[in-house]
């Protein structure tokens, strides 16, 4: 297996010799070991870099997205896409779309933007993307961010751009069948540093890395 797409944390994951599968042509960890589910309930960190995402910005981006029948969320919030996945509004006129495992809205938008409509600029997203789950989640956030996540109302689907152990991140809480989880994105070149640092704290709290099989993707 020699895929063109690799997660920014691929070689860190590979050291643990997990069970892989191809997702969007990227090797993705399904399972590290039989304790994944238990770790996930305490403090699990999953690599979601395989999900297809694309960005756009520009003065006409709002009206253009609405013309594509995509509901545009308020600034610093996010909403779900009709076929799964999410759209995050990163500023007045800047957006990131990410497909779930099944949807293809982000990919479709990426194709449409190849024509470079006036006033809209495609933004290539090669983020490292992680999901954080479990009961000890807030303890990890308190150790790594100077932001009070407890003050957020999850029902309003807030989106926060802040720093985590010095790395600029976009992070959002998300209701899931397993309870509230956090999704975060950072520049891929910081991915390994962020992954390893979060994992070190997670180990101290009784958690660790988990595969895609132990979490549900929205």
């Amino acid at each position: 297996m020699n895929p063109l797409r690799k997660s920014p944390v691929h070689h860190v994951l590979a050291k643990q010799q997990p069970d892989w599968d191809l997702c969007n042509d990227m090797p993705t960890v399904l399972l590290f070991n039989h304790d994944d589910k238990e770790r996930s309930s305490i403090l699990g960190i999953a690599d979601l870099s395989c999900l297809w995402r694309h960005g756009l910005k520009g003065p006409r981006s709002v009206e253009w997205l609405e013309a594509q029948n995509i509901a545009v969320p308020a600034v610093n919030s996010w909403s779900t896409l009709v076929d799964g996945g999410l759209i995050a509004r990163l500023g007045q006129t800047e957006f990131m779309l990410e497909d779930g495992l099944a949807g293809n809205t982000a990919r479709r938008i990426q194709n449409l933007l190849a024509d470079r409509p006036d006033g809209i600029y495609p933004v290539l997203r090669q983020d490292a993307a992680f999901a954080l789950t479990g009961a000890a989640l807030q303890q990890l956030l308190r150790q790594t961010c100077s932001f009070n996540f407890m003050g957020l109302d999850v029902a309003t689907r807030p989106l926060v751009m802040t720093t985590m152990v010095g790395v600029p991140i976009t992070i959002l809480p998300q209701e899931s069948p397993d309870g509230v989880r956090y999704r975060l994105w950072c520049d891929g070149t910081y991915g390994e540093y962020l992954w390893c640092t979060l994992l070190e704290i997670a180990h101290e709290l009784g958690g660790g890395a988990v595969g895609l099989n132990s979490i549900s993707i929205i």
Partner: protein
Amino acid sequence: MKILTCPINGQRPISEFTYGGEYRPMPDAQTATDAVWADYVFNRNGAPGIKLEWWCHTPSTTWFIAERDTARDVVIRSFLFGEISLQGGAA
């Protein structure tokens, strides 16, 4: 912990921000004399006082203006650049 208010992202620790220098209205490059242009390019006012400054919220790359008393290091208010009047003063 020092707190600065980004007009878009709200109150955040100062570690999330980058200072971008004093906001200074640019003279018209077509009509300015060499002396006026050289003053704009090379000279800075180092005297403490209430100044308009460029700041950037790094995680969101939001550039904005903060009105800060540099003698006391107190931020009086912060706002987006669009609120600066055409005359170069704060709206």
